[in-house]
């Protein structure tokens, strides 16, 4: 397992674009329910001290998913459409651990305030996402302008280029 900084030091370009998209600030967090079925929710990832965190509301069932089986998958949203749109995808997987350290929670709050985001709700559960694997995908879309909007043409099938990083 690794921190976000470990990943960023090893793969700076993957991490630079990945962080831009994880900061949107909506990403999808997948967990596994007690019955083994997948669960999926949008949330806002947070970065502090070179580490990756998510806060989960005290009423959300997925907090128990992460306590029982910390394995997660986090996927960023695509970038805005434009002439250079490449549908950049970032997906990180690993294990989540509950943060009980009030000092670390305060540091995450400070980092959130620095980017004009509100404090984590007092009763929310804070998890650190350790990273096992990071995957980025770019698509060589051919973009066309229609009515003032750039959209990928459906005439040509784009090809994907994947890049994978595994924690040592």
């Amino acid at each position: 397992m690794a921190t976000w900084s470990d990943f960023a030091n090893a793969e700076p370009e993957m991490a630079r674009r990945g962080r831009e998209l994880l900061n949107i600030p909506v990403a999808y967090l997948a967990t596994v329910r007690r019955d083994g079925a997948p669960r999926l929710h949008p949330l806002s990832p947070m970065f502090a001290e070179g580490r990756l965190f998510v806060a989960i509301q005290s009423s959300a069932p997925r907090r128990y998913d992460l306590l029982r089986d910390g394995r997660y998958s986090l996927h960023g949203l695509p970038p805005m459409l434009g002439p250079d749109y490449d549908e950049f995808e970032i997906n990180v997987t690993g294990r989540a651990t509950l943060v009980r350290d009030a000092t670390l929670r305060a540091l995450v709050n400070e980092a959130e305030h620095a980017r004009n985001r509100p404090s984590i709700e007092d009763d929310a559960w804070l998890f650190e996402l350790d990273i096992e694997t990071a995957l980025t995908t770019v698509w060589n879309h051919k973009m066309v302008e229609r009515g003032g909007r750039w959209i990928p043409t459906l005439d040509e099938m784009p090809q994907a280029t994947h890049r994978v990083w595994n924690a040592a």
Partner: protein
Amino acid sequence: MATWDEFAAAEPEMAELGLRQYRKFGLAYLGTTRNDGSPRVNPVCPVIAEGRVFVATSPHSPKLRDLLRDGRYVLHLLPGKEEEEFWIRGVAKLVSDPGTRAKVIEAAVGITRIRPAEQLLEYDIEEAGTTVWLDFQTPNHRPSRRFWRARDS
């Protein structure tokens, strides 16, 4: 389990919220379970055809392997700026009928392109949920949630 039309007949307001989100982006996030029991998430382009939900998937895609082993899925539409969320969950099954495939390909025009090699899966609906965030970006923001479950589930 239910089709999209059966769900929409039972909960027209929830279905309309879903369609509103779907028409904006045509993009959804799919959650599946890997063979080691860990979760996987990928973006997909669903197609609603014949009152049913379909997704075409590359034959080499890990998510296809997931769904052929354990069809349980969760599909969450990309949220919009109005802070509305829509999701369905259920079981996906492979479609082998050429007539159904032809109708899905026709319905997909302008949304996505389905390649001949891609596998087509139908997503039966067991549950659906919507969330509307009220007073968003104010200290009083709160979710208003609705939930629907197919009668025979």
